[in-house]
């Protein structure tokens, strides 16, 4: 695993040192604007210490180690920088944090970066565990949390209904974090479970290529089911609209096959892929994938252009399906469509924000 992390050393020493120096300056600048989150501030400080120690010990550290760590610091800097840009979809990130709490006891800190194009718009970028191990070994810094690096299209900043795909990206983080798909591959090897991709188009590939594809596709399926378990048909329908015609490729199953699997999961039907993931989760002592949301009736509130008063955590996740369904069933003329879409997204955002505000106010106890 470590050898995979330490890819072939290719940069010149001067370039690595220059990159590190520039990143040090960038991190210093980021630190001038503190985050809302204390955890994020703490992570930033720890990353700055790692950077400074890599610089001060540059001449005595193995170049491959320094280069690999610098690359990861660069990625982290992009997401930490994005989180100061005030272009965070704060409300859905709150929902993601709530779901994250059910899946890990470790401190996982969600950071976001914005993207500008549709083709590569939503993604999760992992920070390898090796980075943290090397940081501890070579710089003495033991990180107190892990970054969850998610990217989303900037133009969707205030469109929570279009950001449900972030649940999918969070699924990728949890898969990597817990090694869920890796465990599934140990339980049932890739060639013993026929995925929809394994048709004639792939017959010419080598076994290694087939295994890589199967691994990628299992990761996508897991992230899909994870997203559906929190946002239900809101995620399914977004996937259908956003990438409905995407055919199978090396990294992703065909959207049509992904939608079928989501349908099976949402209708609580058995399927060998779903069962495999459930068994892997059980083996890892994790909770099972189940419908973790309750669909509130937003009709009365939204019809009156008022936010819905979210009653509990299941409704917090369920508001996405409820709102998407409400929006889709409206009969609107073309003049009304865009304005209504904006208002409904605003109402979703405000419903979530009000829930956050009320919780924080209540949790701080009575006024004395």
């Amino acid at each position, binding site marked *: 695993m470590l050898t995979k992390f330490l890819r072939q050393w290719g940069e010149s020493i001067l370039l690595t040192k220059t990159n590190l120096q520039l990143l040090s300056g960038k991190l210093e600048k980021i630190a001038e604007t503190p985050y809302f989150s204390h955890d994020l501030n703490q992570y930033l400080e720890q990353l700055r210490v790692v950077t400074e120690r890599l610089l001060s010990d540059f001449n005595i550290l193995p170049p491959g180690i320094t280069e690999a760590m610098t690359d990861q610091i660069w990625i982290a800097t992009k997401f930490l920088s994005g989180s100061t840009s005030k272009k965070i979809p704060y409300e859905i990130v709150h929902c993601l944090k709530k779901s994250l709490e059910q899946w890990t006891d470790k401190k996982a800190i969600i950071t976001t970066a914005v993207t500008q194009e549709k083709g590569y718009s939503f993604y999760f970028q992992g920070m390898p565990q090796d980075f943290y191990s090397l940081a501890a070994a070579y710089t003495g810094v033991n990180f107190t949390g892990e970054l969850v690096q998610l990217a989303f299209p900037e133009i969707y900043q205030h469109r929570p209904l279009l950001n449900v795909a972030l649940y999918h990206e969070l699924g990728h983080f949890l898969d990597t974090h817990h090694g869920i798909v890796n465990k599934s591959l140990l339980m049932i090897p890739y060639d013993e479970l026929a995925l929809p991709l394994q048709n004639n188009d792939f017959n010419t590939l080598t076994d290694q290529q087939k295994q890589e594809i199967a691994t990628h596709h299992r990761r996508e399926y897991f992230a899909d089911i994870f997203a559906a378990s929190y946002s239900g048909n809101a995620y399914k329908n977004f996937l259908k609209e956003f990438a409905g015609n995407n055919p199978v490729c090396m990294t992703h199953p065909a959207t049509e096959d992904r939608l079928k699997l989501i349908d099976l999961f949402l209708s609580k039907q058995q399927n060998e892929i779903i069962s495999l993931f459930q068994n892997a989760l059980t083996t890892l002592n994790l909770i099972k994938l189940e419908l973790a949301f309750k669909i509130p009736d937003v009709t009365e509130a939204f019809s009156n252009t008022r936010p819905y008063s979210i009653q509990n955590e299941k409704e917090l996740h369920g508001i996405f399906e409820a709102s998407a369904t409400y929006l889709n069933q409206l009969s609107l003329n073309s003049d009304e469509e865009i304005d209504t879409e904006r208002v409904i997204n605003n109402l979703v955002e*405000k419903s979530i924000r009000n829930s956050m*505000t009320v919780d924080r106010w209540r949790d701080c106890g009575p006024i004395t």
Partner: protein
Amino acid sequence: MDLLHRERIAESIKSPETDSLFIDPLLEESQIGSVSLDLRLGYDFLVSILTRKPSIETSTAPNHSHRGIGSYFQETRRELGETFVLYPNQVVLCTTLEYVSLPHNMYADILSRSSYTRLGIPLNTMVQPGFRGCVPLELFNHGNSPVELVIGSRVCQARFFEIDIAVEYSQNNNIRKYFGHVRPTVSSADSDNEMQKLRNISAILD
């Protein structure tokens, strides 16, 4: 036209009728006063900044050098309990924390609370019957010292007036641009329909 008192405000808020007063979140019952209701400072801000342009153009003249009003403001956000510093002579747009919905026979005057007026931050705006959204607040510090404001603090108060007839908020086809907003929005002065007419008049002046 009747000014609503405490009991009527509370009664309207609790009313199950769809066309009633709606304030969400109402964090404390004590926000309802004798003849007013305290509203809190929201978390999204648009802060005015200086640009290379000498002035904000409200004319809609379609030339390449026209700079949109939005570019004279910078977006920022705070969390509940955090502070926002309002500097002297700076225009800052924000909203109330609460989402407000007014019945079609009620309008509201929004005024700063005296504690903030005494710091040099007056507020005076009106909300039309049938309004839905977080109430826009235009902050301006008239004093000499920067003032630290706390997100969620009760900076203003609403006085509610019932009128004899119900009126439609969205009539005239041009009102909806401020409808259902939950964040501050910049002025639409440059997209006013009459600007074109005024420019035409200007062009034919002797």
